[in-house]
């Protein structure tokens, strides 16, 4: 990667602007719902096309860059597309295309209010996520990270009832407090110590001079790790279950993909490109981080076991799975980093399938609780089949995507000689099975209560079912053919 050539590319700006323009288009066409949603879906397709058009150059080892604003020396709003950005940009843009159709089905079937605001904010959140994916320095990343926080507030508060407001309040308090209290000083102190906020083009060196004060660098590392609270590390994870009051498409795209992935992407980007593998090694930051997030992996799984509300269980599962990503990178071994980064992709496709299914179940049967799902699998076979496959991915069983992650992480922990991490991974796999398997079991083999026959319940509408099946199919495909995404990850590791 060191030899990569830097090319200026205006397509980056276009990719960034498409969701923004889409959002403005949605706001201006609020009265006409067909036109409004056509704009969303066209924007999503164009975005995907632009992101895909960047693939050849990035795979050829080029780094695409575009400086938009120079604020101070070393502080600028600059976009960059490299292998790591492509991992996240591809996930976010491809899932947006699916989610647009899904939310159309969901929102219209339930006759939700304020759909214009919903669609506009949805597009704005993608704007932020794409900005994070394509940021070339900490400042740009921080800027778009904050944009995501602000633009998703209306989505979380969507229902405008007591529950919605309190969930949204918790959401914004957690996210802005950590960003202001930890990220802001970290950003400024890094600038003071190094004179720049730009990412280097390799994951080894980082930006700190060799003689930087170790205690300060360690402090900054902790600030960054906890400051990107969207990564769901305990004890800063409470916003995530709280945000589940949002309509399910929001939970699906934002709280399984865009928002939380913005968090882990920022965290791992900072670990690899600001601190760098060498500094992390020298200051012994990696393994303690792995154990620290290991606690989150286990605890969140245990809490998930206790949740009867399907979305809550999925939320805690997300908290747990996000830490896999950070743990993998923190191991600092090639397989560890590979497993961590590829899990950004694997988890996204599988978890969005699970959330889509939860939404479909709610729309078709108005069921929110796992204990009410007995026998529902026979009425909604496709939904629950997709759910079953995606949960296999969460558990890490072949041939679904999650297996690739588990494999890499296990190898990575052995490379790092960390038996403790290995045990955490095995325990968590068992816990994953323990909280996902009963759902599928109940749905297909559970006995329908005599008092409550499922009369009149059909499969969810096609506009929801098709996205579910697409997402599920991709989860399987990237499990069988992992190389397409792995080539980006391998390019990052170099």
């Amino acid at each position: 990667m060191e030899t990569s050539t830097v090319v200026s590319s205006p397509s980056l700006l276009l990719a960034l602007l498409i969701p923004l323009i889409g959002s403005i288009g949605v706001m201006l066409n609020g009265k006409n719902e067909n036109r409004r949603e056509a704009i969303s879906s066209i924007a999503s397709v164009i975005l995907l096309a632009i992101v895909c058009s960047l693939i050849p150059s990035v795979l050829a080892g080029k780094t695409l860059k575009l400086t938009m604003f120079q604020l101070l020396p070393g502080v600028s709003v600059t976009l960059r597309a490299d292998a790591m950005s492509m991992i996240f940009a591809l996930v976010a843009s491809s899932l947006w295309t699916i989610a647009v159709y899904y939310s159309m089905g969901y929102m219209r079937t339930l006759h939700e209010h304020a759909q214009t605001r919903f669609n506009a904010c949805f597009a704005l959140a993608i704007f932020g996520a794409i900005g994070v994916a394509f940021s070339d320095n900490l400042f740009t990343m921080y800027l778009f990270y904050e944009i995501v926080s602000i633009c998703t507030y209306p989505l979380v508060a969507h229902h405008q009832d007591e529950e919605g407001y309190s969930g949204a309040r918790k959401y914004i308090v957690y996210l802005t407090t950590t960003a202001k209290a930890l990220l802001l000083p970290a950003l400024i102190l890094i600038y003071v110590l190094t004179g720049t906020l730009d990412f280097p083009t390799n994951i080894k060196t980082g930006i700190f001079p060799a003689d930087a004060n170790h205690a300060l660098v360690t402090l900054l590392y902790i600030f960054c790790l906890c400051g990107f609270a969207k990564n769901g590390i305990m004890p800063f994870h409470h916003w995530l279950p709280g945000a589940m009051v949002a309509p399910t498409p929001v939970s699906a795209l934002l709280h399984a993909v865009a928002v939380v992935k913005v968090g882990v992407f920022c965290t791992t980007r900072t670990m690899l490109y600001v601190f760098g593998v060498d500094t992390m090694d020298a200051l012994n930051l990696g393994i303690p981080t792995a154990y620290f997030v290991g606690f989150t992996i286990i605890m969140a799984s245990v809490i998930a076991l206790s949740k009867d509300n399907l979305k809550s269980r999925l939320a805690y599962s997300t908290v747990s799975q996000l830490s896999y990503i950070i743990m993998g990178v923190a191991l600092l071994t090639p397989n560890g980093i590979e497993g961590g980064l590829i899990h950004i992709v694997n988890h996204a496709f599988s978890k969005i399938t699970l959330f889509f299914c939860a939404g479909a179940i709610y729309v078709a049967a108005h069921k929110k609780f796992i204990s009410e799902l007995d026998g529902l699998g026979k009425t909604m076979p496709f939904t629950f089949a997709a759910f079953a496959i995606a949960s296999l991915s969460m558990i890490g069983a072949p041939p679904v995507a999650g297996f690739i992650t588990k494999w890499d992480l296990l190898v990575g922990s052995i490379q790092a000689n960390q038996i403790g991490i290995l045990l955490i991974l095995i325990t968590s796999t068992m816990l994953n099975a323990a909280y996902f398997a009963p759902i599928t079991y109940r749905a297909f083999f559970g006995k329908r209560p005599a008092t409550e026959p499922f009369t009149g319940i059909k499969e969810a509408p096609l506009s929801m079912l098709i996205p579910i099946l697409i997402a599920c199919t991709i989860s399987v495909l990237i499990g069988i053919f992992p190389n397409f995404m792995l080539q980006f990850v391998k390019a990052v590791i170099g």
Partner: protein
Amino acid sequence: MEQLLIHTGPPVLSILIFLPLIAVIPLLFTANDNFARKWTLVVTSVAALYSLRLLSGFDRTTSAFQFCEKHTWIEALNINYVIGLDGISILLVLLTTLIMPFCVLASWTYISKRVRAFMVCLLVMESAMIGVFVALDFLLFYVFWEAMLIPMYLIIGIWGGPRKIYASIKFFLYTLAGSVLLLVAIIWLFVQNGYSFFIPDMMWQNYGFTSQLLVFLTFFLAFAIKVPMFPFHTWLPAAHVEAPTAGSVILASVLLKMGTYGFLRFALPITPDATVYLAPAILWLSIAGIIYGGFTALAQSDMKKLIAYSSVGHMGFVTLGIFVLNQEGVEGSILQMINHGVTTGALFLCVGMIYERTHSRELRSATGVGKYMPWFVTFLTFFSLSSFAFPGTNSFVGEFMILAGAFSFEVGQGKFPYLALAAIPGAVLAAAYMLRMLQKIIWGGTDNPDQSWIKDINKREIITLAPFLLFVFWIGLAPQGFLNLMHASVANLLSQFAAHSAQGVTTVGQLLP
């Protein structure tokens, strides 16, 4: 010694000072309120456009005073009419001239009684404010400084809210208390400098430490009240709350800046040793203001009070940046003065617009207007984001530079950055109180009052707010053009300061003879 670049050609600064003053005359002979409004708008707009000449003629490479004019005024006392402009004051002058037309627009319907008198006050105010920023003769400065008091006193006292008398007297007494001792210091400096009030001659004179300390304390009292620094701030919420919108905007955007401008123009160059000696105390006082302002703002239910207390916090950042005494800090402070002028001014305009509709400043009565006032809340959202230093907006750049200055101030000395980290909770609180206000106004809760009758802002109001938004993003994304104006002057100020102050002095004993 600072040199003066005497301006040839039309006396731009004098025109800017006296144009509004002369424009008062027609207002004295008319009974037509509408004419008064339009006339004042035209005059202030002309002054604003004319002031842009300063930008094209300003030499960014020198720290000398530019556009200087010098005329003898009172020969017997050696009082001269000397005015000039450098990188520290140019942006403040432009801020003043550019903000005035919007103050007129904001008073278009808000002020319905004694319109002409109000417009006269605005025009006199403008003259005095520009005068303060460009005066290079200390007595001339003092004249302008005191001249501001009267129109402001009237603006609050006549067109203010229910407790206007209390607020205006408090404002008047506080400011006067500060400036009385300032006059003593001015006279002492006058005597010390061979009976001259010429400010550049007073700078970098290495006065004895005890004298410096005393002079600094009088400066401090005058300027700290004006800023206002904690604990001298109590006049501000009262004045802001009672003042009409235009009064609040002028107060927040321009008047508060005079305190911090005073520190930069007088305290640092005239009393460098005392500045070094007292800087730690002032830095921690700034931190106290940042935190106190934040917490108090969080507790307010009155929108104007909320913004007033937020000003205490924001101005705490400005004094923090000044007294870390390095390039980032001081430049960040000057930029933050402008940012605060833009953002807080705009926020007061927004609150004024709500007040004109609901006739209440209570947050409670403005909850949930978002649905009915989409344009208004769009503006309000951006200004609120700017107020809590959202990245990409103007205040972020200022706060970033100030905190970078504060961090390097301590890290550079090999210390742990306690000071800078202590300011961080202020940034968190700013997000908390602004988002709280924003949430309540846009969304409210489940028991909002019926707001369906409320009308969105009209074209005049959009035109009033739009330029502020432009500056929010302009400074936020391309601050270099603004910073370039001040580089030379700030660099000169700091290098002179380093040469003339006994750096590293920690006890009085080290300085006393």
